[in-house]
């Protein structure tokens, strides 16, 4: 008998079995919906956490201030050296002139300050460089590098590095970020494992109700794939149907949650995230549903297969 004929028969029995065991199928689909909802929730909360942490991280930087007498070469030298450091994400250079213009803009309503500035024959402000690290934990290494530069014979024109003033805040933020990530991963693993187990057990129960039927199939000489195949097909159907239902229900839900999420997280809008990453969501939810249904059925039937 050809592979195609067997596959066609197995698929047909899978479909028919799914429909005829309506109540059992409904229960399995319902549990799979809950499982896939947990998956979708984990994906969204993970993205929200990442966006929030990124936002916090972006607020942190280390500034190195140069003396007004520092030469252009000294400033450029430090900037190039910083750009070569693997820990550095970006450097933003502010020239002496730009620093002065910024100062004037910031104090434009303070006449005395502006007048005092005008009395000076030269620009009293030095250039500065704002440095962003890839991870908040890397600021210390960058600060150490700058200290070494400062300790060189000519001091590299560096007047001050503000890392140590911000160190406590940066350390605390680093701790919060690392703890949040660990807690989020642990919670995700726990929830995912719990929901997979629930879905697996529901499918196992569904197949338990058909154990006598499996026994009869063995008795009439049905091969393992002939017995197992229809249950795997039904498992795939549970996954596909519950996946589609979850994706459909999520849409009005994220429309409703969108403004609230933006207000709560700052820049993260759950609606934008869902619509922007729909392809990713579609593939993840559908493939999780199909894999969970098929693998659960495959394993659950094994218990009742014997020759």
């Amino acid at each position, binding site marked *: 008998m050809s592979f195609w004929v067997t596959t066609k028969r197995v698929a047909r029995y899978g479909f028919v079995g799914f429909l005829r*065991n309506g109540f059992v199928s409904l229960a399995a689909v319902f549990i799979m919906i809950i499982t896939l909802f947990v998956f979708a929730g984990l994906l969204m909360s993970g993205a929200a956490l990442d966006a929030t942490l990124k936002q916090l991280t972006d607020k942190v930087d280390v500034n190195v201030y140069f003396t007004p007498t520092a030469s252009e070469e000294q400033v450029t030298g430090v900037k190039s050296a910083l750009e070569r450091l693997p820990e550095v994400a970006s450097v933003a250079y502010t020239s002496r002139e730009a620093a002065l213009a910024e100062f004037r803009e910031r104090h434009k309503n303070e006449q005395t300050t502006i007048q005092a500035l005008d009395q000076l024959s030269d620009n009293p402000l030095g250039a500065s460089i704002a440095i962003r690290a890839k991870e908040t934990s890397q600021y210390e290494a960058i600060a150490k590098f700058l200290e070494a530069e400062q300790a060189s014979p000519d001091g590299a024109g560096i007047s001050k590095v503000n890392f140590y003033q911000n160190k406590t805040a940066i350390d605390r933020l680093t701790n919060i970020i690392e703890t949040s990530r660990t807690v989020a991963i642990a919670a995700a693993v726990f929830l995912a494992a719990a929901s997979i187990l629930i879905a697996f057990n529901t499918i196992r129960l569904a197949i338990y109700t058909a154990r006598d*039927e499996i026994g009869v*199939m063995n008795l009439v*000489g*049905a*091969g393992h794939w002939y017995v197992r195949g229809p249950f795997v097909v039904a498992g795939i159907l549970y996954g596909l149907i519950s996946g589609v239902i979850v994706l459909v229900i999520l849409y009005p839900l994220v429309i409703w949650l969108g403004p609230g999420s933006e207000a709560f997280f700052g820049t993260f809008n759950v609606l934008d995230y869902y619509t922007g990453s729909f392809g990713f969501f579609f593939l993840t939810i559908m493939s999780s549903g199909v894999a969970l249904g098929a693998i659960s059925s495959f394993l659950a039937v094994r218990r009742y297969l014997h*020759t």
Partner: protein
Amino acid sequence: MIYFDRVTKLYNGGPPAVEDITLSIDPGELVSIVGHSGAGKTTLLKMLFAEIFPTEGSVYFGSREIAGLSERELLELRRNIGTIFQDFRLLPTKNVYENIAFAMEVAGKDDEDIKADVPHVLDLVGLSEKMWNFPKELSGGEQQRVAIARAIVNQPDVLIADEPTGNLDPINTHDVVEILKKINNLGTTVILTTHNKGVVDAMGRRVVTLEEGHIIRDDKEGKYVL
């Protein structure tokens, strides 16, 4: 064709269900195996279609020892032995047609043969009008006739009937006996276990009597004597 060679079967270290049984059944025979409950009738049949294996001794189907068959050969063996049970063992989520078609499908029959043979075999057991009914919609006698149709549709060499009339009224019992005789007359070996004296006497063929796991009588044209 079927040969039990000094077969003993123990379950979980208890007393033997059958002990040192030697029995030969020729092709085309109709054999009734009788005995009280627990005499070992069903154990003998189960060893024949490889649901269980002997603790000692060997069971041969043709020239091949059943315990030495590969998984694939075991499946082929089962497709070559039709089975009927007291509790019918139909597939509850499949209708009558599908129950019979399923046995043909697993035997590798093509769709054309299935479409032709299923109505034919249902006609043989008098159930053509119930083709699209589900087992729960049939009486006990009708379910047993579906089980018989399923058992013979692949034209097996051997038909095993384990208490096939145990759940049936006298009229249905008579029908089943007649069908089994007809199947045997067409050349199929029929091995029947039963408690029913009327069934054994109506067959008028070979009777093997078991008691506490031993054969105590083997009559060529026997009656139910216990």
